[in-house]
């Protein structure tokens, strides 16, 4: 039932309308609306009941194990939410004078410092609203850097074929052409291909390390040397930062730019698709180009840094200072976890992934990179199930839902056939991992004995498998009026 189905003309919530009838007669008639917009007219109880019940039709971290590779679905501490939503923070206008903003700005400044420390970067700007916007800011800084040095000819961004789709998309948005670099059989960047690709057109290389294949790029030193020697810069996609927190810092690996997904590594909520936050950190030579605003500390006072202070900035990415509320949540999380906790996160995330891999292997599943150590995530390929039983990775994914387990990431990275990318995160217990193994083993058995049952999954959710083709073909993205 849609909220519109509950609507009745004239149903009202007077508690949410100003008491006095106000006039807007001074607005000329030709600029006014003729018909009120057909929004739902429901009582507060109906709305509360409708959206409470809708919420119950979701899986979420708070209800289910969520081993979604590359997404770092870890526990989102509730303190981060309640403290970021204190009245004083919610009420602050983004353009309030600095004198009325020192508490908020102190949090931002400290967050800049903490992120710079854990990434090994010189400076951090918090303004990008999400990972992809952080990427865009990052590659735009690379562009601005080369231009500032008169190297307008560096127009090519190198991207491994295993990269997240946002990498090439961001590079294109920043005006680069994209050149793909292949991956070798062990999951590392093909160094020969890289050497062949670099040159005077090279602006930089975008890399995730550990890569999206769930392995650590072992020759990162060599890669950095090749790219830097060719005059390019190294971009670090922070999507997998959780794997190496406190163990090795992107700055120490030679990266010049990094974006950090606060909604992954630093536990801010995914919210059903956002908001995230994608702060960018840079080495000293790129600092002049960071997007504004940023926060500076001068003695005991904090002040905003704008275009005036940073004339070479790539500019603004949103109307105000990015997703402030997300930043506050990450700030709380980082304070709770602290210096030592950072390292422990990487350790236990890696332990969980390797344990889960070991147990799934023992249960007969095939790793995509059997010779490699898993990082915080790993890939299984189900090609044998697909071939022998006609049961695909998608079928496994859907059947897992029936077992009360969210599906891993499927069909990504694209270069591994029938793959599941599995990331348990450090916040899951060993028992939770064991239950996942049991479910996978049960589905494998079912695939052999009753493959139809798996192919037709899910069976126990609010809906059965949905017709995506019809959704795209008979596009229905808004309820017709009337």
């Amino acid at each position, binding site marked *: 039932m849609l909220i519109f189905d509950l609507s009745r003309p004239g149903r009202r919530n007077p508690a949410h309308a100003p008491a006095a009838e106000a006039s807007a007669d001074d607005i000329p008639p030709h600029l006014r609306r003729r018909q009120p917009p057909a929004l739902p007219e429901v009582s507060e109880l109906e709305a509360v009941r409708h*959206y409470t019940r*809708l919420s119950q039709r979701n899986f979420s971290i708070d209800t289910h194990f969520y081993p979604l590779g590359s997404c770092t679905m870890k526990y989102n501490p509730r303190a981060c939410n309640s403290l970021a939503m204190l009245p004083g*923070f919610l009420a602050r206008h983004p353009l309030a004078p600095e004198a009325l903003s020192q508490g908020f700005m102190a949090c931002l400044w400290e967050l800049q410092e903490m992120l710079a420390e854990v990434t090994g970067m010189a400076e951090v700007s918090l303004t990008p609203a999400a990972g992809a916007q952080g990427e865009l800011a990052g590659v735009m800084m690379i562009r601005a850097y080369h231009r500032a040095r008169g190297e307008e000819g560096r127009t090519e961004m190198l991207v491994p074929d295993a990269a997240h789709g946002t990498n090439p998309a961001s590079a294109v948005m920043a005006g680069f052409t994209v050149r793909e670099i292949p991956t070798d059989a062990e999951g590392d960047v093909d160094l020969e291909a890289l050497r062949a690709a670099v040159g005077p057109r090279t602006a930089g290389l975008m890399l995730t390390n550990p890569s999206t294949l769930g392995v650590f790029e072992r020759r990162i030193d060599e890669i950095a040397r090749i790219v830097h020697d060719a005059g390019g810069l190294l971009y670090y996609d922070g999507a997998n930062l959780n794997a190496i927190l406190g163990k090795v810092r992107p700055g120490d*690996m030679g990266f010049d730019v990094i974006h950090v997904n606060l909604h992954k590594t630093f536990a801010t909520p995914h919210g*059903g698709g956002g908001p995230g936050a994608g702060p960018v950190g840079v080495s000293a030579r790129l600092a002049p180009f960071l997007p504004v605003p940023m926060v500076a500390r001068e003695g005991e006072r904090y002040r905003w840094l704008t275009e005036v202070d940073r004339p070479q900035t790539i500019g603004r990415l949103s109307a105000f200072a990015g997703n402030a509320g997300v930043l506050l949540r990450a700030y709380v999380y980082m304070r709770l976890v602290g210096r030592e906790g950072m390292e422990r996160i990487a350790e236990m995330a890696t332990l969980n992934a390797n344990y889960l891999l*070991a147990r799934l292997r023992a249960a007969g599943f095939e790793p995509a990179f059997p010779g490699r150590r898993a990082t915080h995530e790993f890939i299984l390929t189900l090609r044998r199930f697909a071939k022998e039983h006609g049961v695909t990775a998608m079928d496994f994914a859907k059947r897992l839902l029936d077992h009360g387990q969210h599906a891993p990431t499927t069909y990504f990275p694209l270069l591994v056939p029938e793959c599941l990318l599995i990331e348990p995160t450090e916040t899951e217990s060993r028992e939770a991992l064991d239950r996942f193994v049991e479910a996978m083993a049960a589905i494998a058995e079912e695939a052999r004995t009753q493959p139809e049952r798996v192919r037709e999954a899910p069976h126990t959710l609010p809906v059965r498998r949905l017709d995506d083709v019809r959704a795209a073909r008979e596009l229905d993205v808004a309820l017709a009026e009337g």
Partner: protein
Amino acid sequence: MPFIPHTEDDVRAMLAAIGVDSVEALFEEVPPQLRSRVGERMPAAVPEMEVARIMHRRAAADGLPVCFAGAGAYDHHVPAAVWELATRGEFYTAYTPYQAEASQGTLQLIYEYQTMMARLTALEVSNASLYDGASALAEAVLMAVRANRRAGGRRVLMPRTVHPAYRATVRTIVSPQGIEVAELPFDPATGVTDPAAVEGPVAAVVIPQPNYFGRLEEVDALTDRAHAAGALAVAVVNPLSLGLLKPPGAWGADGVDIACGEGQPLGVPLSSGGPYFGFLCCRREHVRQMPGRLVGRTVDRDGCVGFTLTLQAREQHIRRSKATSNICTNQGLMVTAATIHMALLGPEGLARTAAACHANTARLAAALTAVEGVERLMEGPFFHEVVLRLPLPAREVLDTLATYDLVGGVALAGDYPELGEGALLVCATEKRTEEEIGRYAEHLGRILARRAPPCERLRPR
């Protein structure tokens, strides 16, 4: 360690199952020369109790000043139910609804949101949100250029009456793609854009309503001029205003092609500027050029209605470098709040709120212009925001007002030097009371008369 369940026994047993003898061994592929530790800029862990103390203190330090600033972020009433529901774990901690069957709650809600936004703007399609109003305008411009590639080239007209930060964001985001953003001037006496200034060839014309000064543009004429010039018309609107104002889909002869804007007035607290959400709506013919996620209604294998992400082939995770945008994350939680907010307000609540804001701002303008030396700067109809001229630099006056726990508005001279140092943009939402407006006028009067302040200020300057 907080949020890590592992006991020592767990670690031992898990290492044994892996077949290694230490956690350190799991990092064997990381070259030893790169290993490092986190240093002192990252402080040690503190318990929740201590972080709570810090955050309570800082939130209280910033206080709850009375807010007369607008400029793209508005202090509206948000029903308590909105965030009590939106922060339910099942909404708050869910991932992007790629697994549709396990995400019907979020997916249906977004479908409802898309419907509400389409109805509000009188357009056919809404996406599932973008980051904020400014970046949504940038995406709208990119979209318009793509959709109008043949006719319009890569030139876009942007009135100077569009929010300065929006214009800056558009510049940042679209300039690497070789798109030229030409600014249209405004008449300082009226604060609006002259439709006659719209001339082709041009790919798109941006039309703000109300504009940054709160002034109402002649949107019908602007839309028609844009279309006459072969351009797409891109509206940037305050969604709350659409409770009262003509929706972009009805502007001019044919309506605009794309409408976007900042969703914050629909249930999102001020919260220092974010997270907010950008909305983006368009005519159906442009849907394949739309960036961002889109939810469609379909059926399951039993023929029952369900919801799913659709037209994903536009997106970066499928199309990579050829995607309509690099955008991945949207502002799902804010859309959740906005949808509940709109359901609670309904059409009448939205219209009454808009009217109350407008009437309050008129009251505010009357009260402040009754102060000697203060006058309205731009003639003509406005919506819920006006520009005043003070006889002192607005920035200084605002700093003084801050010591009385008043956010007195936004000084315009930085972005519009031609308006003079005294130009001040003010707004009084439906939350502002007579008493608060009176207090503002009183303080302003005292400041401008350079009379002695009352016995003590609330805050040190």
